[in-house]
């Protein structure tokens, strides 16, 4: 659960990315970065809005850090333009950008105490001494490190170092905070707790956060929008719900969560419905909305495991929106059961069921023939 869930109505209305009038705060226009022959960032255009919590999500090596480093000013784009708050950043060095970064390795100054680390940024701006003291104290309180102010980084645990790094990058109240896999070094429990705190801090300060992560759950938990990246490109940039329920490609569908994908051929394509045959599943998929593909076109059908209902009795018409197979494997997780069903074509399909009633034995077991059915709106039809 995130802090956002406590104010659902307010959150729902705030969506500047769907408002054509809204002025983007950070603007990337056709940005590319080449290292020698290697294209690390490939023609990315993105708009990020004020006070947004934006996530860059993708596998290792897809160019997330490079993109972040271009925003911070450590790498120059090979081509394209980056604007922050209306100012072109082309000739602005890192030490003059209104941006701060939290590094993947934390990069704390080893010869300075926690306090001196946090004060460093303010000292560079020649902030008066008593104001530095006050703001450092505020930050120490915010990240709950007051008692450790006089320690050196090597005397801190991983979680504590992470907090110092966060405080140090927040103390200057930047227009934008860049976070490169900030929680990567923490264990699962601490990571979840810190995700929650990050969201709180972001909402309190109103600073625009851009976070890099390869953990899709983390991206879904903390961010307003996610840019899913692959090989230097942004494949889809949308809200967590959109990328999960309405992915625009097989890549996004498979990267976010679990999914069953079938290759299909369109047999009927109307204004308000479509029918797609999937030989692998020995089934016709009936969709309750029009699709942009013509008859005979090849498409892909993405079906999430939790969208299917599993049962032992066949539905009225077992050739439409129903696939049948034999239970191959069962994973019992307490709250959920995961069924791996082997279809007659040899393909394995995953289905998840919530365990609603208390039973000592599941009603469905190995080798049972089962029928998986779903509502006509449950399938995502993908062109690529």
């Amino acid at each position, binding site marked *: 659960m995130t802090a956002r869930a406590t104010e659902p109505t307010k959150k729902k209305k705030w969506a500047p990315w769907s408002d054509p009038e809204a002025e983007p705060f950070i603007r990337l226009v056709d940005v590319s970065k080449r290292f020698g022959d290697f294209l690390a960032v490939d023609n990315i255009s993105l708009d990020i809005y004020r006070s947004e919590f934006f996530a860059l999500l993708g596998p290792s090596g897809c160019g997330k850090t490079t993109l972040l480093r271009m925003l*911070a000013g*450590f790498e120059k784009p090979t081509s394209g333009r980056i604007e922050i708050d209306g100012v072109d950043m082309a000739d602005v*060095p*890192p*030490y*003059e950008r209104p*941006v*701060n*970064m939290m*590094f*993947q*390795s*934390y*990069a*704390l*100054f*080893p*010869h300075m105490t926690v306090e001196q680390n946090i004060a*460093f*940024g303010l000292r*560079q*701006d020649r902030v008066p001494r008593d104001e530095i003291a006050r703001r450092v104290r505020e930050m120490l309180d915010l990240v709950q490190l007051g008692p450790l102010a006089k320690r050196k980084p*090597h005397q801190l645990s*991983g979680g504590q*170092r992470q907090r110092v790094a966060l405080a*140090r*990058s927040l103390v*200057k109240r930047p227009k934008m905070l860049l976070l490169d896999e900030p929680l*990567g*070094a923490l264990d699962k429990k601490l990571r979840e707790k810190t995700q929650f705190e990050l969201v709180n801090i972001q909402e309190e300060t109103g600073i625009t956060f851009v976070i890099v992560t390869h953990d899709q759950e983390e991206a879904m938990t903390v961010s307003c929008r996610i840019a899913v990246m692959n090989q230097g490109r942004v494949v889809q940039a949308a809200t967590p719900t959109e990328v999960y329920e309405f992915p625009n490609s097989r890549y996004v569908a498979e990267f976010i969560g679990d999914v069953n994908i079938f290759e299909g051929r369109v047999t009927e394509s109307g204004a308000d419905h479509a029918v797609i045959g999937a030989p692998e599943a020995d089934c016709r998929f009936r969709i309750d909305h029009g699709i942009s593909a013509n008859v005979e076109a090849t498409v892909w059908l993405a079906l999430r495991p939790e969208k299917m209902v599993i049962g032992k009795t066949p539905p009225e018409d077992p050739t439409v929106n129903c696939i049948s197979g034999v239970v191959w494997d069962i994973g019992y997780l307490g709250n959920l059961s995961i069924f791996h069903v082997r279809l007659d074509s040899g393909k394995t399909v995953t289905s998840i069921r919530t365990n609603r009633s208390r039973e000592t034995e599941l009603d469905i077991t190995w080798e049972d023939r089962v029928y998986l059915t779903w509502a006509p709106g449950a399938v995502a039809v993908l062109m690529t």
Partner: protein
Amino acid sequence: MFNRLTPFNVTALAFGYAFLYLPIVILVIFSFNESRLVTVWAGFSTKWYVSLFDNTKIMDGAWTTLRIAFISSTLALVFGTLAGLALARFTQFRGRTLFSGMVAAPLVMPEVITGLSMLLLFVALDWTRGIGTITIAHTTFAMAYVAVVVQSRLVTFDRSIEEAALDLGATPAKTFFVITLPIIAPALVAGWLLSFTLSLDDLVIASFTSGPGATTLPMEIYSMVRLGVTPEINAVSTILVGIVTVGVLIASVLQKRAALQRIADERLAQASE
């Protein structure tokens, strides 16, 4: 078979160390000899140390040596650090391999060759030889040591620490002085001490590059020895051995600490993968 302390091993060890250190031990003992005869023990005395201070030749030599050592090791520190930085940071430039080989060459070059080539250079340039030329010569070979020490420290330096300083508003120059230098300071001190002791006990290069009126302590001792060994020489050598030992000890402790720090840094970096 060499793992255990067999009588053979013990004997070999004893002979080895005796071979290395017995001459020095004898030198130290006889510097406290009452008698003027170097080979006959006649009781404990510190009078040769006292008379050292009245020997103007030795005192002048010591002063010259200290001045040369101080200036040349300081210059070597500056230039060696710059060379080490260039080697560790600019990994792409043309001729890097050649440059890195040339920086390290004085480490293995025979001293006679270094001295001779320096001499030829100064003659060709028609410079008056003296304290200045010795200082330049010492700087040249000592900076190679500093460059190597600094380079090996910087190779494992986490550059994101410098980037963090830039990110927080420090200019590149300020970042270098406030962040980079303090972190690599132990390596710098080790390099300086090493240069200082190298310059202090150098005889060959100094002999080649010195001129009339510029006689270093090792040169002075060498010329006195040719007229016979006196207890005074033993006394001044004992002091020299003391200074060099302390310098090398501190330098190696600092380098060991830097190595430990490096291991700790690497472990930190791994922990945050």
